[in-house]
Structure formats: C-alpha cells, structure tokens
C-alpha cells in the first residue's frame, strides 16, 4: 500500500505521490495551497487549531464573475439600507463545515476596511453583512469570501422569517421567567405544605404567601399574557378555547389567593397559578418550535433562480435582468448552466437534464429547432435559443408560483384534542359558575361558594388534556428519529395515522434511481483500467453506473491518463491511448464510427470498443429497492390504497409496478399532473401520503396531506417534505406508518384517561368534597399518568 497523507488545508487524504509539497505541508490541489498561504500570511492560522481534523471540501477554482454583485438590478433585489445609512445584505455562505469556518469568515470580513458587521449563523449558514458603500464594494467582499475558499450568494431575507425568530425569542423570555418563578414558588410551597400538616403561625404563612404573590405576578401577567391574548381573540371570534380556560382558571385562583393573603384566612394557591401557566406555556412553545418555516423553503428555491441572464444583443453577449427578457430575445446558455426561460434552439446542440421536470434520469439530446424548457439543465450543450415566453409565463416561474400557493394551502386534518378542548372548556366554565350559584343559593357564604367554584376549574385544569397529545407525539417523534424518520411537525404523526391513500413516485423512491449494471458480456480479455478511466470522464448516469460497477469489483483500480479524449454529445466518449482508438457509449456512437453490432436487450446498453472492435457490452437497469414488495403487502393489510405516479414511459412503469404488486398506476405524468391527481383524491375526501424524491415531485408533495421525501432527494424536495426518510429505505416508510398508528392510538387513550379522571373528580369538586389543595395534587397525578402511558409507545413498537 502506498503512503497516504492528509492535505494541510482540507485534511482529505491522498497518495503522497500526487500531493503538492511545500515546505513541510502537503496540498491536494492549487486551491488548497493558495488558501493555506493566504491564511498564514494574513495571520489567520488560528483557523487550523479550530478545525482540528474536520474534513473540508477543497476550494472551487472557477466562479462566475463577481461584478454582477455591484450591478443595479442586484442592488434593487437584495441590498437594504439600514437605520444608520449603511448597506446591509443577507447572504448564504456555501462551504461552511464547522464553527472554525464561521470564525474565519467573520475574521476575514472584519479585517476589511468599510465592513461594519459580519455575523454568520453556523446552524443555517446565513450571514448578515453590513458595509459602508463608499469605502468598500460588495464585489470585493464576495471576492474575499471566495479567496479563503468559500462562496456566497444573496437571498431575500423575508419579513416572515424575521417574525418567526422574534416569536421564538419572546417565548424563550417568557419561559425563562415562568420557570424561574415556578421553581422558587415550589420551594416556598414545600414549607407551606409542611406547615399545613405540622402547624405554622399565621405570621410566617403570610410572609410566605406574600413572597409567592410577588413571584406569581410576572408569571401570570408576563409569561401568561399569550393566554389572555388567545382568549381575547377567541372570544372575539365567538370561540371558547383552551386559552380562555387557562386564563380564567389562573386569574380566578390568583385573585382568590390575594384575597386569602390579605384576610389571613385559609390557604393561598399561588403555586397552582404559576404551575398551570408554566406547563401549558412549555407545551405551546413546543408547537411553535416545530412549526415548519415556509419562508426558509422559498429561500432555497429562490437560490436556484439567478436574477440575471445572458442575452445576445447586436451580436454582443450582455447580461440582463431575468424579468426584462422579452419574447423573441436570443438567450445564451453554456454547458452546466440552467435554462431559465422557455424557447426554441436557433444554434448549437447537446444533452439536457430534464429530471427536474420529468423524473427521467436519461439526458435528452436537443438540436436547432427543438424546444427547451425552463428548469432543465444543460449538460454539455452551448446553445443560443429564442425565448418564446417571458419569465412570468415560463414553466419554471409557473412551478414556483404553484408551489408558493400549495405551501399556503396545505390541508390540515383538524386536531382532535383542540376540538375536544373547545367544548370541554365551555362545559367546565359553565359547571364552575353553576356550582358557585347553587352553593350561594343553598345559603352558604360567598367565600365557601367561591372556593368550591374555583376548585372545579382547578381540578379540571386542562393539564392532562393539554399534555395528552404533545407528550405522546414527542415520544413518537423520538422513536422515529432513531430509525432515520424525521417528522418535521408533531401534528403530522396524527395526520399520518388517518391516511387512506399512499401515492408513490417510481424513480428514486421505489427504485434506486440510478442505472446499475445487471449483466456484463465480454468478448475477450481487456484492461479494465482503460474502461474505468473512460467512464470516469463522463458525468452521464450510465457512465457513473459502470464506474460504480467496476469499483465494486476491484477496489484498487487506478485511473490512466489518455493522450486525447472528446465527448460526443448524446453518444458517448472517444479517447486515444497508446495509438489505439477507444470508444464508449451507445449504439449511435458505434454507427457513427461504422461499427456494426447485433445485440438485443430491453435494458439500456453501453458498448465498449477498442480499434473499431466491440469488446464488451454492459446492460444497465434501475434496480427496485429491497423491501418494496413487503411495503405494498403491509399497506394492503392496513387497507391503504397504493398508487404509483411516474414521469417515465409506460413500459418501464408497468414492469416496476408488476414486480412490486401495484395495480393502480399512472405514467408520463408532468409535475402538474401529479399535483392535480392529489387534488382529485382530495375531492374524493381521501387523505393522501405522497412519497417522492425529485424536483418533479415537489408540487405533489406540498399538495398532499403528508409529503414524505427520501433523504437523498433534491434539496428543495427535502425542504418541502413533511417527513424525511434519512436512510432512503422503504422499511423506514413502513416504520413511519407503524409509529404514527401506535402514537395516535395512545393519544386517544391519553385523552380518554384525562376525560375519565375529570368525569370522576369534577362531580366530587362540585359537591364540595375536594378542597383546592387536594385538587392541585391530584391534578399532577393525572398528568403523570398521561406521561407514563405515553412511554408505552416504545414497547408497543417493539412488540408488533
């Protein structure tokens, strides 16, 4: 074995022979060497002490021109002027691996003249940069970020996101106050409980009461303000909600306790006030925390649409704002770039990746006269095309608009607990008032009647009811996370349990999504290294499939450098080595070089020829995932309808469907078709889980009640999905159904327990048998019961 050394900058390990040696350091590429030198010169060595052995990706060497960052259109779209008159921009920094990267970027930016603030968040890689325009240009700032090995692009930090962060922060503050006060009140309450049994002088009792009073006040009016607000809005809309119940219960107990403290008669219950508020507030916070941020999702989509485009004007290529391109303009697209407008090719040819729109993994060859669709990517084509639609009407723009509306329109099965608590609250408040009236009418004093009235509310305190759902879902979420199932919102577990239709995408979901070699037919012995080096040159999925196949057979295989090589669009690769002509590609490539071959197969074929003689033929096909059949059987057992939707052709759709046992399938579906299909299911009152992985599925994913995404799927899909299967396996999908079903069952059980508890204790309280102290203790007991019951989810999951 040869000696492997790590690059001094990125820490990736390579053979010593291929590394660049510089003093005592090794580098894997010029980029790494350059960045390392720059960091040492500028005195940023501290970076390496902080990264330790974290592996970085080597810096990119080719960037688009940074001058676009100074252009007028860019400024309009992204740069804001802050209250001090400085410029401010929100950037997403690419290439951040660890906190040391954050440190380095901030330090480097701070060192620049004119940069006033650079604040990078490690968790989401978003940065805010503030600079003085006269002193430094934005392009210089971007250049600086690039020179140290990262890249940055702008995003529109929407108001929505700012608002979500603000709300979360205000909850932190409220919770901190509530928890601090509750903990202190509990200590004081212990003294009071002890005094209740062993005797306590009235003076001490009053002192303790006053201390509790002081502590409970901020909890009720600062932390508990959300409940008062919620109750107010509820009443305004004529709804009696849980907030009203919590607010009145806490407020009445608070007022009653003040009365007790002042008159020095009986027991005060400031501890109940703060405990109710604290517990329910924490429950509410968990909801806020798990709410998916739609703003984030749209940012990620926006990142994929550059705001400028190259067009041909009077024989010169100029950049122009995307929105300003008119129908009839000639647009220039180079290889590797995205097509942003619909149009018709006037010059050039090459392959396009349309998987974004169709899910089809095979690239499609296009030449002059063919139409190009926005949203696709040019693989190897340099073309000029005439725009036939402006941006507003283009396929891509349509997709984004549809998506935005779909995110906002997402159906939600109303949550059972909320509906229940609505009635529950009004009933309890009614009972409490009734009890008070009856006791007064029966000739008891105001004080006694009031106390009994309150004990009804305290004992019915929605704690158990409020905890019934969140605790069970938390246990379910945790269980899922350990098995690689990421539910993004707690409520989704409940929704998923009620689903009756499962819609599956084919490529990447039921199948692996990449062509794999299933058969190799060699006609003579040959050097596998040559073939390996040849397919390594191409990014075509078929070539990658063969590459993986050779690697799996021989791990030590090495690349050979060809004397000459060229890619022939939509055909394959041609290379020269030691005077021999080497060809690898499809049938068209062989015909082009006058080679005849007789070989028939249903699968995709790759031919390898040396000096006009076919040496080996590889058959490739997309493999079906292991537990696909099992999943379908399990779904049928659960009475869930299974449907397959695919953008692929009829033949491959039918062959996959018959292999896994799906009877209902639709093929050649566009993204819009898929989403319309989900809508039509909704029209039949069915709730749908959609499973997919690609950009072509995102519309359907966002329309479905639950969108499940494979972890290996595209960024946007993962962002939009409600549930992510991190290990891409269909067994996880099965587990996800199982977990949601068990969890939902236990939620129902929990609700039942708390209702039974209330049914028993409320009449007792109304009859005056329960003093508020006992009420408060038994309230905690019911909550404990609910929490304990929720823990059973794990055991149940293992049993089944």
């Amino acid at each position: 074995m040869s000696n492997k050394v790590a690059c001094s900058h990125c820490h990736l390990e390579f053979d010593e022979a291929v590394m660049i040696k510089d003093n005592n350091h090794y580098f894997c590429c010029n980029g790494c060497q350059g960045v390392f030198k720059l960091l040492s010169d500028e005195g940023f060595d501290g970076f390496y002490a902080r990264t330790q052995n974290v592996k970085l990706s080597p810096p990119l060497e080719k960037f688009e021109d940074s001058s676009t960052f100074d252009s007028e259109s860019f400024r309009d779209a992204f740069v804001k002027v802050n209250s001090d008159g400085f410029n401010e921009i929100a950037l997403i920094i690419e290439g951040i691996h660890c906190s040391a990267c954050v440190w380095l970027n901030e330090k480097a930016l701070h060192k620049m003249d004119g940069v006033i603030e650079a604040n990078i968040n490690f968790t989401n890689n978003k940065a805010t940069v503030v600079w003085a325009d006269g002193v430094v240009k934005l392009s210089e700032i971007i250049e600086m970020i690039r020179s140290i090995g990262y890249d940055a692009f702008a995003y529109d930090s929407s108001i929505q996101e700012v608002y979500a962060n603000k709300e979360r922060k205000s909850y932190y503050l409220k919770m901190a106050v509530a928890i601090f006060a509750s903990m202190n009140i509990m200590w004081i309450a212990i003294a009071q409980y002890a005094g209740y049994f062993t005797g306590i002088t009235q003076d001490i009792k009053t002192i303790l009461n006053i201390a509790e009073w002081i502590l409970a006040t901020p909890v009720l009016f600062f932390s508990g303000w959300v409940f008062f607000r919620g109750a107010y809005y509820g009443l305004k809309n004529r709804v009696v909600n849980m907030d009203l119940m919590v607010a009145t219960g806490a407020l009445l107990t608070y007022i009653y306790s003040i009365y007790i403290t002042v008159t020095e008669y009986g027991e005060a219950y400031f501890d109940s006030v703060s405990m109710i508020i604290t517990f329910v507030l924490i429950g509410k916070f968990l909801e806020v925390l798990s709410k998916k941020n739609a703003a984030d999702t749209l940012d990620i989509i926006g990142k994929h649409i550059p705001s400028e485009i190259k067009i041909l004007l009077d024989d010169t290529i100029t950049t122009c704002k995307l929105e300003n391109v008119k129908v009839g303009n000639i647009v220039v697209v180079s290889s590797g770039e995205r097509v942003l407008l619909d149009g018709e090719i006037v010059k050039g040819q090459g392959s396009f990746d349309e998987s974004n729109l169709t899910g089809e993994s095979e690239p499609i060859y296009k030449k002059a006269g063919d139409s190009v669709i926005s949203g696709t990517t040019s693989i190897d084509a340099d073309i000029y095309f005439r725009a036939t639609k402006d941006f507003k009407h283009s396929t891509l723009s349509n997709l984004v608009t549809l998506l935005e509306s779909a995110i906002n329109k997402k159906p939600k099965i109303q949550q059972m607990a909320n509906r229940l608590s609505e009635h529950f609250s009004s009933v309890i408040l009614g009972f409490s008032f009734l009890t008070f009236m009856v006791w007064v009418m029966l000739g008891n004093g105001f004080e006694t009647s009031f106390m009994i009235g309150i004990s009804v509310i305290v004992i019915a305190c929605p704690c158990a009811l409020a905890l019934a759902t969140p605790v069970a879902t938390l246990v379910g979420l945790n269980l899922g996370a350990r098995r690689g199932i990421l539910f993004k919102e707690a409520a989704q577990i409940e929704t998923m349990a009620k689903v009756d239709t499962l819609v599956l995408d084919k490529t990447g979901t039921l199948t692996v999504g990449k062509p794999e070699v299933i058969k190799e037919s060699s006609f003579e012995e040959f050097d596998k290294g040559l073939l390996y080096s040849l397919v390594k040159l191409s990014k075509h999925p078929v070539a990658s499939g063969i590459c993986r196949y050779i690697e799996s057979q021989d791990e030590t295989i090495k690349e050979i450098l060809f004397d000459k090589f060229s890619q022939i669009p939509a055909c394959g690769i041609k290379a020269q080595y030691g005077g021999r002509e080497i060809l690898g590609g499809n049938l068209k490539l062989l015909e082009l070089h006058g080679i005849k071959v007789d070989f028939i197969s249903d699968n995709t074929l790759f031919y390898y020829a040396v000096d006009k003689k076919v040496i080996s033929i590889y058959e490739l096909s997309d493999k079906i995932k292991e537990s696909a059949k099992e999943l379908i059987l399990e779904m049928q057992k659960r009475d869930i309808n299974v449907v397959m939707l695919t953008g692929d052709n009829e033949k491959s759709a039918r062959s996959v469907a018959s292999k896994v046992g799906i009877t209902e399938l639709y093929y050649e579906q566009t993204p819009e078709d898929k989403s319309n299909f989900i809508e039509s299911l909704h029209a039949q009152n069915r709730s749908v889980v959609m499973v997919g992985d690609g950009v072509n599925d995102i519309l359907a994913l966002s329309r479905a009640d639950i969108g499940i995404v494979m972890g290996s799927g595209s960024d946007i899909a993962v962002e939009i999905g409600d549930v992510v299967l991190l290990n891409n396996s269909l067994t996880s999908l099965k587990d996800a159904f199982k977990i949601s079903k068990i969890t939902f069952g236990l939620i129902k059980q929990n609700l039942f327990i708390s209702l039974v508890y209330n049914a028993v204790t409320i009449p007792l309280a109304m009859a005056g048998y329960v003093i508020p102290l006992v009420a408060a203790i038994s309230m905690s007991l019911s909550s404990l019961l609910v929490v304990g019951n929720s823990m059973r989810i794990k055991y149940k999951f293992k049993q089944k």
Partner: protein
Amino acid sequence: MSNWVIAMMLGASVFLGALGLFAFLWAVKSGQFDDEEKFLNAAKFDGEDELNDAYRQEQKKKALKKEYRPE
C-alpha cells in the same frame, strides 16, 4: 427565629436569583444565544485577540458612522 429573618432571607435570595434571571433575559434579547455553536466555541477559544478585534470593530463602526453622517 423571628419573622423578619425569614422575610429578609426570602427577599435576599429571590433578589439574587432575579439578578441572574435579568442577566439571562438581557443575553437572550441581545442575541447572544442565537447561534449555540458559536456561543460555545467563543467560550472555548476566544481570548485576548478576539476581545481586541471586537473593540477595534466597534471603533471602526464609530469612525465610519461619523464619516457617513456629517451632521
């Protein structure tokens, strides 16, 4: 034990606790916990240099502000 001792002890401990709480609230409000990674790393790595950097940054901001708004 007389009553005022209890009252004083309660008052003093709640006051001290409240001081800690207010410090925490201030830190949350001014965004010091926004990025937990950064906050933990600052505790681990930051030294004199970082403190000086932060100070210089403040100075730079002040100087630029003057330049920018002559009034």
